[in-house]
């Protein structure tokens, strides 16, 4: 049998090879696509032709200085909330998995309180902190104080808003970071311990980068959520995007175009964040996938080359 294999002549072309292949047709798919295309065209038409959208007003305001400044403030608040929130969240997550029962309990309680109270309520508390404590002193606990500062001057509105967002975000971030730690195989930590790698380095070099694969998608959700949550800061009369838009439309009465201005900017910022998420995820996928997925740019280039 096996000796036959070597001498067997190349198989003759099968009769099917000379025939033309007709791809299967999917008429229902075409009908559905046509219906959707008409609906999309109608929506686009309505957006352009309905005078109530008032596009001229939209374009007058969308890049106006006061709006751009408001966008910048929204971005600053988001950045502060994310950085401080995830720092706090990481500390809370480490406390939660520590051996010390007091640390565990404090972390759990913090998460419980800050997840339970609506953000807008928390922001109002921070805004009114001066009523609760009109000075803040630094000194020996329960003992004499060295410096006292009026709460109003210590916590300017931006810091109050940023802290409010960060403290709220920290509670959520804690759970996200903890989920990330749990997703890393215990063998990784054990191998690092067996090699004598110092504890801090075990965390930063071995566990955290692998946890990031689980953390990033959920964290990106949270960051986008926080970007939009900054709009609630309007209760503190801080001129972020949503507040600024309201100021302008109460003055001019052009509500819809200004709401569109805000929509445009939230969309734009979220787009940038989503693109960033793709590349961050790709970075942390090193070694976890056999081959990394191509970036949109690489995909475009390969299509170009094929054409």
């Amino acid at each position, binding site marked *: 049998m096996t000796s036959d294999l070597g001498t067997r002549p190349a198989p003759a072309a099968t009769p099917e090879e000379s025939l033309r292949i007709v791809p299967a047709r999917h008429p229902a798919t075409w009908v559905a696509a046509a219906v959707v295309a008409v609906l999309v065209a109608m929506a686009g038409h309505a957006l352009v032709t309905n005078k109530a959208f008032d596009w001229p007003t939209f374009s007058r305001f969308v890049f106006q200085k006061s709006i751009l400044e408001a966008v910048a403030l929204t971005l600053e608040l988001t950045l502060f909330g994310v950085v401080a929130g995830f720092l706090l969240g990481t500390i809370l997550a480490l406390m939660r998995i520590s051996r010390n029962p007091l640390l565990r309990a404090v972390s759990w309680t913090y998460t419980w309180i800050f997840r339970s109270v609506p953000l807008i309520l928390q922001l109002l508390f921070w805004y009114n902190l001066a009523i609760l404590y009109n000075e803040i002193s630094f000194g020996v606990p329960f003992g004499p104080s060295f410096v006292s500062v009026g709460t109003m001057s210590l916590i300017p509105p931006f810091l109050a808003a940023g802290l409010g967002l960060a403290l709220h975000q920290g509670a959520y971030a804690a759970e996200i970071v903890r989920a990330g730690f749990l997703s890393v195989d215990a063998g990784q930590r054990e*191998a690092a311990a067996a090699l004598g790698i110092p504890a801090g380095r075990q965390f930063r070099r071995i566990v955290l980068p692998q946890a990031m694969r689980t953390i990033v998608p959920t964290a990106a959700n949270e960051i986008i959520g926080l970007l939009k949550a900054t709009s609630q800061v309007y209760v503190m009369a801080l001129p972020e995007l949503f507040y600024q838009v309201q100021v302008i439309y109460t003055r001019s009465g052009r509500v819809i175009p200004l709401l569109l201005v805000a929509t445009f900017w939230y969309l734009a910022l979220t787009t940038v964040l989503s693109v960033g998420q793709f590349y961050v995820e790709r970075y942390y996928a090193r070694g976890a996938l056999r081959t990394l997925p191509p970036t949109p740019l690489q995909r475009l280039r390969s299509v170009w080359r094929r054409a």
Partner: protein
Amino acid sequence: MSADFMVDVRGVHKSFGALTVLDGVDLQVRHGEVTVLLGPSGSGKSTLLRLINHLERADRGFISVGGELMGYRRAGDRLHELKEREILEQRTRIGFVFQSFNLFGHLTVLENVVEAPISAQRRPRAEAEVRARELLTRVGLEDKASEYPRRLSGGQQQRVAIARALALEPDVLLFDEPTSALDPELVGEVLAVLRDLAKSGTTMVVVTHELGFAREVADTVVFLDAGRVVEQGSPEAVLDHPQHARTRAFVEKVL
């Protein structure tokens, strides 16, 4: 504690909850010797290995490696428990190879091997990399230095794990069933590395079910059952002329 033995285990007990895993184990390994631990699953072999490098803490009894008590410091008639940092420092003198490799998946092969010498022993990166490449050559993987572990076969991953353990230049190497997670055709390449290490005079403690390997390489074979050492001696004595009925039953079943 005598410094005559590279590994000296005295009267070690270990329980997990109500389950007694080790019930008074003594084990001595001389410098340059290869000791193979045999026994049915659940007999405590892996736990004993993990106790030696203090990944687990013994409930009773003491273990010293290279004449140094693991996990404690003696001051007069008192034993002080060591801090995590000091235990990590002790572990750099013991190489540990896991059944499931536990390579760091997000680091390349070379980064896996140089990580501990750089961060635990504070060696310069350039020096660590030269040494790592030598070790990768020794295990036959010099061309895989910049690959990620997931792109390697199981046998190749385990050889990287051995190179990683060797990078610390440990006094003793511990192997926890190093070939049990491998396809049969890949077992040979890993055992070849172990054989080579044994020949060069590395002190090793190996948990394995490969009786052929034990017969060929081991100086001492130790048979454990239900948390006790049932029998120990030369491979011929334990494998060919077992004194104890339990050893005999085990050897017959595995062969």
